[in-house]
């Protein structure tokens, strides 16, 4: 706990925070980029099965240098390994897992998240070549959609907004957002702050969010607004029903 200026969490710390909320036994898809770090943060005592949409359930960590197999890769096209109990399958079976509602959680990056759960994460709408990949399938099919992103862009623009300006990946699809500053649920009341990073205050978050935020921290009326409100264990308990 520090009372200095809010620095927020590092990328790895955000990934650790996400990993805390993934229950034992979950089937999880991690998006390309920052969400990939989550794989390394899942504690040994949890058995979490990672899915990669290019046809593997039971993805393991990257192989040692020199042991890469160009035909054993993840959706980001990086070399991976398999864990015992893994299985390979073709693309339509892989997306049946996604689209048929069989995956418990996906963790995706974001350009913008709106207060109603709209997500924009595939196109800036500018001259760049558009590329959607499996993002629209994931947000539509997976039971819980988590976003992991910097709270603001590098230019300091809020990514949490009232309405997305970029082309949507899906409407009202996001369940929760993990940023360097906070864990924020999408609720019928909009952005609901569920947890704060150490040293970050609710007003730090509110100032950096382009939409109203409500305080939904466990027992938030009893304690001050710095630091994690609830220990990982109680937080996890509430996840069991996800």
């Amino acid at each position, binding site marked *: 706990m520090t009372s200095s200026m809010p620095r927020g969490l590092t990328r790895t710390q955000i990934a650790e925070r996400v990993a805390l909320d993934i229950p*034992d*036994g979950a*089937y999880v898809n991690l998006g390309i980029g920052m969400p990939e770090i989550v794989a390394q943060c899942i504690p040994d005592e949890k*058995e979490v*099965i990672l*899915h990669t949409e290019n046809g*593997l*359930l*039971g993805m393991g960590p990257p192989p040692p240098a020199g042991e890469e197999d160009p035909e054993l890769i993840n959706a980001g096209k990086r070399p991976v390994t*398999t*864990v*015992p*109990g*893994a*299985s*390979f*399958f073709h693309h*339509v*079976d892989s*997306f*049946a*897992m*996604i*689209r*048929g*509602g*069989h*995956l418990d959680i996906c963790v995706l990056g974001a350009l913008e998240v709106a207060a109603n759960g709209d997500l924009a994460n595939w196109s800036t709408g500018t001259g760049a070549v558009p590329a959607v990949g499996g993002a629209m399938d994931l947000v*539509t*099919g997976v039971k819980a959609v988590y976003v992991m992103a910097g709270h603001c862009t590098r230019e300091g623009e809020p990514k949490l907004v009232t309405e997305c300006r970029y082309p949507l990946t899906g409407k009202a699809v996001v369940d929760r957002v993990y940023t360097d500053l906070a864990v924020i649920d999408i609720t019928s009341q909009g952005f609901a702050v569920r947890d704060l990073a150490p040293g970050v205050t609710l007003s730090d978050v509110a100032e950096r969010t382009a939409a109203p935020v409500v305080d939904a921290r466990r027992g938030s009326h009893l304690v001050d607004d710095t630091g994690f409100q609830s220990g990982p264990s109680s937080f996890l308990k509430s996840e069991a029903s996800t």
Partner: protein
Amino acid sequence: MIDKRCADAAAAVHDIRDGATVMIGGFGEAGSPTELIDALIEQGASELTVVSNNAGSGTTGLAALIAAGRVSKMVCSYPRSADSEVFAELYRAGRIALELVPQGTLAERIRAAGAGIPAFYTPTAIGTILAQSKPVRRFGDRECLLEHALSGDVALIKAKAADRHGNLIYNKTARNFSPLMAMAADTTVVQASIVAAPGSLDPETVVTPGIFVDRVVREERSPQASSPGVGWL
């Protein structure tokens, strides 16, 4: 830790409710999960809708479930059997409903439920009495029917081998509908001849990945079981 193994078939089917839709794998005898069906009979759930290619033969398995009066509706492609009158008698007496579905459409509808496809078009059954009341749309020079996904509350299936993650392989033509039903049911229960450690099954040859499976029971009556256990269920 992921461990989908159940102590026995009774434990694996204990929570099937009256009125549930139960998908039952198998094509005739091949792939029929007889131990799970016996446990379901013992368990007592009634008013069931059963989705299965056939409507039972002989006097055991699905035929016994039907004979016990537990099934109010069958969804199947071929409810006729040379060696059983169980379904036929109830059907003629108006005591069991039948939704007759072409076999390929049945398979595709089950898969659709598992794959998140609410409905699809098919030319199968166009111009027949099984097309009655279904929406028709023309694609190119072919008229097609709109067919809806068919899901289940529970699937009861049989595998050759499973691990505690629920990864499955099957034996020959016993595979049939089981991989599809595993995808389409809220809860998938498997009876397997062999229950092996994760890693025992080659990832290249797993037919049903564990994500589609919820409960695994080792067969009591399989050749692998010790003889005292045979038939005690």
